[in-house]
């Protein structure tokens, strides 16, 4: 099994937060290394465009 999954249990958590800012604040209050993303729907929320981008990834 990949080491990445074990990092969750054994290494300091390093978190990227996408969405509710409150979640990042709660992690910060627990002294977690976290960065918050000022997220907006990708491709202006156009689902067809998202699917196209998704296929390109």
């Amino acid at each position, binding site marked *: 099994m990949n080491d990445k999954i074990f990092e969750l249990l054994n290494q300091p958590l390093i978190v990227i937060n996408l969405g509710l800012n409150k979640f990042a604040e709660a992690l910060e209050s627990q002294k977690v290394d976290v960065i918050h*993303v000022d*997220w907006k*729907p990708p491709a202006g929320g156009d689902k067809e465009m998202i699917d196209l981008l998704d296929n390109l990834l």
Partner: protein
Amino acid sequence: MKNGFLIRKNQYYDSVFLMGFNSRIMGTKGVQQSAVLMATDTNKEVLVNLGFHSADFQTATPNDLIIAVIADTQSVLNELFANVDHSLTEVRGTKTVSNLHSLSEALEAKPAANLTVISVPGEFAAYEAKKSLEAGVNVFLFSDNVPVEDEISLKKYAYEHGLLVMGPDCGTSLLQGIGIGFANSVRKGNIGAIAAAGTGLQEFTCMVHNQGYGISHAIGAGGRDLSDAVIGLTTLSALDILDQDSKTDVIAIIAKLPGEKSLGLLIEKIKQCRTPVIGCFLGIRNSIDGEEVIFKRAKTIDEAVFLAIRQIDKERSTSPEPMPPLPLKSGYTPQRWLPEQRYLRGIFAGGTFCYQSQEILNKMGIDINSNAPLDKHLKLQHPDFSKEHTIVDMGDDFYTIGKPHPMIDSTQRKLRILKEANDPQVAILLLDFILGYNSSEDPVGKLVDSIQAAQKIFNKRGGHLTVVASICGTDGDSQDITMQTKLLNEAGVVVFNSNAQATEYCGNLINGGLRR
């Protein structure tokens, strides 16, 4: 009555911010109704249901903010809209805005990241989760309304690449003592846990803490993980890593209505574990192959806590003492019910509590109707309309699409409590209060006025409303569990520190006093 709306192009806000801003508008004199939403297709439908015309916001995109208001006069609307930008700035406060605008930018900024927490609207969540997994980063997916096909595809990818996807619709995890999503302040210890979604895991971890023990890791797998479509891919991975974890001496699995195939795969996996396993499978009435041989079976979350503690502390052979009902206000007697008062109404924020309460009451011979029923014959025709004994899961998708969860925003629970109070057949109101990170800062305070208003309605009729509640929380939670309990006691509410105990108390009231 006048209605009007305003669109702010390219101003995206999260649902908690929108809730705060909407509360502010609703508090304006002369405002009857308001909705502050991002212009997704689902939210546009909400506006149409409020009486707005879809043509007016046809061109708005999910990046655009819509503020729709119904007010007494045009001048109220004019004044409100003239001050919108100023009000938005005020609600936003002095918080620093992140200069990162996408997951890719964040991955560049934090190349050593090992977890992405995603709580964006469900329709975009799988896209972001996939990007995170492809970058080799585990995912905690809080978002709900993610299509099941996307869930399967994400979890298969994660399983094949040695990564973990907690969710979608995953409310809670506690990793290395750190609470993610809706979690409580719980001490570290040697009991591990895996649960489908949120409140079951919160209840288990809080009870372990409140008994003086601690949690190594508690992993949320997502509400659908143990369905036969998803076949428990996250639960199986979580069991693997907890079994190999040197800090975990016993593992408790809490699940509601696991699919037959998933349960079979899980039992096979448990057989291979070296660590003892406790299984609490709510909604499974028959015996399970291997129970009491390869795993110990618990009927309730409380029993799972007891069995887990007994496993690590052999001296604790007696059942943990249930918390006795706290002293009641003088004058409380169930005999004050009127003859027409016959039914229980449970208005819950916690989905697992909804299942557990139904199961306990069912075993006591009491059929419960629900929007999330254990028995499909007892499904409410419409979630908004209770029938006889009813328990409603207010965290169900029906109530949360485009709106914050009832653990954050109590508005919908408040309205439902008052609605139930207008039914003279109600005798008992059963509630749950959930403390912890990211929950409402004052869950009891937000509902106590409506509890008291409901009690007054019954008093006026010459009857009595019995209110019973459970509080899920610890002494470390910021909401102050002692103060929350005191507030309920002062309102004449019978308070327990577990949903199972509160439910059993209600069952005894029904069997002892209401069956007449």
